[in-house]
């Protein structure tokens, strides 16, 4: 059973954050929403572990 990594893990945080915002540049709200949905599905597949995803969902819930 996997464990969600909740320690600092992204060395180039600023770069990646900028990539994320840039990706939405010029997109309408519906286009951005659709983009986010595709991104989430893609990352979920990469994680590939139901337990880890459950932990991530709990964190997102706040």
């Amino acid at each position, binding site marked *: 059973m996997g464990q969600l990594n909740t320690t600092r893990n992204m060395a180039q945080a600023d770069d990646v954050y900028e990539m994320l915002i840039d990706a939405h540049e010029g997109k309408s709200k519906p286009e951005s929403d659709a983009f986010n949905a*595709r991104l989430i599905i893609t990352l979920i597949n990469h994680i590939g572990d139901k337990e880890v995803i459950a932990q991530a969902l709990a964190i997102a819930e706040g």
Partner: protein
Amino acid sequence: MTMQDRYPLAYKTYPYAKCADQEAEAPARHPVVVVGGGPVGMALALDLALKGTRVLVLDDHEGVGMGSRAICFAKRQLEILDRLGCGETVAQKGVVWNIGKVFHGEEKVYEFNLLPEDGHKFPAFINLQQPYFEKFVLDHVAALQAQGLPLEIRGKNRVDAIEQDAEGATLTVMTPDGPYQVAADYVVACDGASSPLRKMLGLGFEGEVFKDSFLIADVRMKADFPTERWFWFDPPSKAGASQLLHKQPDDVWRIDFQIGWDADRAEEMKEANIRKRVAQMIGDDVEFELVWSSIYTFQCRRMTQFQDGRVIFAGDAAHQVSPFGARGANSGLQDADNLAWKLQLVLEGKAPPALLASYDDERIHGAKENILNSTRATDFITPKSEVSRQFRDAVLTLSKDHDFARPFVNSGRLSVPCTYDGSALNTDDALPAGPPRTRPGAPCPDAPLDEGFLLGRLGRAKDAAFQLLALDAEVPEAFSAHGIDCEVIALSVAENDMLRERYLGGARSAVYLIRPDQHVAARFGSFDAAETTEALGRAIGKEL
């Protein structure tokens, strides 16, 4: 007394005839009365009658209803019918299919192959109009009745009231000659999704209603679409929000259009409008005949308990699912399969009445599994919220180019037989190296034998006896315990790799205790009389 039919008949198989019970001073008593002669009621009645119990079926119509409804029947259901003697007839008429394609707009996003495993008598799925299915079962019943099968069907006998006590129930039955009463030790309610018996007993039917409606058109046409299941999300024809095309026998095709919750039903059901939608889908130039059409909405719901004293519910009366996944009739037949032998043993006094509680447990387990799968498919096909639609569309869009997204596409997870994991009737697995697929609770998978198939020898229709299946193990010629004679079948896996793979796995020998419904009750590495006796006692409810 006139009794209006609620639906037109395809076959008038059991016309009304006045019977002696209607003149009786006191209600005549029957061991089992089955209310409802649909696929579930008939399968159950046939199973019980083959085992020797006198069964009375009451149905408010005089035969099989028109209109196809179910078209996809799964392998397990053909195996159940085969045990009852009519699996081959049903399978022969059916259309065999393996490939399913999913489209999003113009593009194909996904294709699956049911990849039938070798060495099974029956294919993974067949398509067959429900009236044919019911007719073949009734023809088989009629042939057996002529040889003395203790099964009586009374058409235009509508159950209007029920009263029950600890010993049984009394039904008030309406006929064209007026009402009469019959009494029964057990009543099995197979009276369909709107089950009048469930309402008469004030029992709940909780679940979810989906806010969408579907128009079905069964059309006859000479078309060269392949024998595959085609499902469209957002079809290019715009004839519906989703669309399904599936072949049936006799050049008939099932077309399903998702037309939305607010659709004007009367308007949509006009033949001209249906023809317009169909033409949008198959093309203006294709000639077709409209065979049957209907609009349906659906629910996923079930009763909290399937048994209420002496009344037991089965099929749609007990649970209802959306059609996605073909789990309606398929799961109803598993109910019948599960209940028949238990009721038989209880009526014979060989098992305690508590055994019936295991029907409740096992089939509620099945119903939960079906409702879960069916609800998930429905949520994918008819997303309930904006965000749900966004994820659905994201999956479909990604699936075109990326294989990783395809497992998320859900146009219906097709019915597979239920394994009764955790059932109180199971004995803990004592064959650790054995294959998981034949663990206690599982339905036995088929395998080829020198002559015929394994399932042809398991689960005898004619009594509620258990069997011992020994594979390369020393066993006595016969085994008997708790008043039940078990037939012993000794086989060798030498030169039978499929049998080895499905029943031995890494083990060298095995002894399986098999229930009359072909589910595994227990399995061991070798035969031990005391262990087998204990397992058999557990499997017939002695520990409940």
